[in-house]
């Protein structure tokens, strides 16, 4: 009896060479939380002029660092890391740990549908394990090199959203003043040598930065400006942050005018 060779089913071959589609890093990067500190702010020149935005710091969940522990199952297999105690300690020190699922729509990519719990961390497959990056840091790589390209518009949108949604309060006056003092010191240091062309250029740059910082501070330009389209909860959060008294039963329009009056008064006082 002859064999029936037609019974052997064809299986689709792997169409991709996985080695070429992986990020060429010898080791992966751990998952992370973004965190902000009330004293860590910077004035950045964005597409809207100078703006005060919270500095984003990265708390990597790397076992052995800052008290992060490995967690294993009953068979001794590592199943993840425990960063709860470390995060508690960081919170005690004043850090604001941004929940991983926090990601406003303007920061999301709309190439694929948004999944529940999808946040600001994106994981890419790498040769040495998962490479975790923030949503605004896009991997750019070829066979040998790897770097990230930052979408600054997305990054700024995220920073603005932190303030708009009330996660981070606008900076205290002393924080703004400290940052400006650092710049002024830089100006003074360079001004003594401004007869040299490179120092003259630096003086111009720093002067523009200080001016931008002053304008942004006086205009209360801390993140997304409130508009008629802002939610009432957002307006209330901002008023609370600015320590402006209000009655929660007031209409959104009235609350908004209180905010606008405060901004106008601050600008006038600064000028």
């Amino acid at each position, binding site marked *: 009896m002859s064999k029936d060779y037609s019974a052997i089913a064809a299986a689709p071959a792997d169409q991709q060479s996985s080695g070429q589609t992986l990020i060429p890093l010898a080791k992966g990067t751990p998952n992370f939380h973004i965190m902000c500190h009330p004293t860590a702010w910077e004035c*950045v020149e964005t597409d809207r002029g100078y703006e005060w935005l919270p500095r984003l710091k990265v708390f990597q969940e790397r076992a*052995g*660092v800052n008290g992060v522990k490995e967690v294993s199952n009953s068979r001794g297999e590592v199943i993840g890391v425990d960063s709860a*105690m470390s995060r508690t300690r960081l919170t005690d*020190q004043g850090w604001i740990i941004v929940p991983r699922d926090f990601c406003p729509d303007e920061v999301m990519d709309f190439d694929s549908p948004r999944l529940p719990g999808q946040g600001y961390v994106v994981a890419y497959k790498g040769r040495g394990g998962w490479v975790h990056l923030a949503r605004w840091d896009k991997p750019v790589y070829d066979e040998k090199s790897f*770097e990230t390209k930052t979408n600054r518009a997305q990054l700024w949108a995220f920073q603005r959203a932190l303030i708009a949604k009330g996660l981070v309060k606008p900076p205290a006056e002393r924080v703004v003043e400290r940052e400006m003092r650092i710049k002024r010191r830089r100006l003074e240091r360079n001004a003594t040598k401004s007869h040299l062309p490179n120092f003259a250029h630096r003086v111009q740059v720093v002067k523009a930065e200080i001016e931008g910082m002053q304008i942004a501070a006086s205009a209360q330009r801390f993140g997304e400006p409130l508009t008629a389209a802002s939610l009432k909860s957002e307006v209330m959060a901002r008023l609370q942050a600015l320590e402006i008294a209000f009655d929660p039963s007031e209409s959104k329009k009235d609350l908004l005018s209180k905010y606008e009056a405060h901004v106008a008064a601050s600008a006038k006082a600064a000028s």
Partner: protein
Amino acid sequence: MAAALTKEVAVLLTHNASIRRTGYIKFRGDVAGTLSDTMQVRQVGLGGADSFVSATEIQDLGYTQITDSSFNLAVTRYTLQRAVSDIARITGAGVPMDPTDPFVLAEDMALGYEECFNGLVATAGATATSNVGTSGVDMSADDAYDAVYTLEIASVPGPWFADIAPRQTADLQESLRGETGPAQFIQATQDMLNIKGQGFVGRFLNVDWFHDANITTAGGNREGFMAGYGAIEYATGTMTPLVGSGGVVIAPAGSPVVVEIIRDGKTGLTIPIGTAFVAVSVAEQARMVGIVTDA
């Protein structure tokens, strides 16, 4: 003849530095014999932290509480395992820098541990509360001055060191080309490298500058830092294999790494495994400042 092999096996470009060996990272101790993998370090504000206050003759004084704090060092196992096949051993034996030689592999593992340690320190350093530098702007001599001023204002005792990304080093050096005045960047000489090891770039503003490819990148920025001694601490756990466990154990000199070599005759493999237990933590935020500049 298509090709002729050279006798020498050249070593590929590797970031061969050790921030641990510089002495700037404070060693807190070993968890051996403590019955815990976590060392809780207690800190107290003594030694003149609170100064006397004036008072009238019969004034009832309020109590001044002693400031206290703590941080954890949770020791974690870090390993590196290789497998040397019999055919590799046969053909590789006797070649200079023989990659199948157990002692060459043990030395490589000791250096691999240092690289891991550099990464742990860089990760810890990225959580600095105070920061200088501007997002998206290259590092400059001005940022170096700002970092020094921040530590000076905080009365951080020396010696100070800076751990920055190679890109930041390049930008700083570029900026220094246009600097004038008495402050000079002292390039690392051979003598300095002999003492401080690879990764040492030089001295500037009385600070030892090191560069490290492991520095964290976030938001298009490099998160380097400058700190005083005691800002970052580490702990280890010394592993000693049980008596009678077999195999060969090599402990590279000056390293907490233990390299075990086991033989699996079934697969024809000789397996060197390097193990180290280590933890790194920020001990005191006030002693450090982040240097955040363009990547």
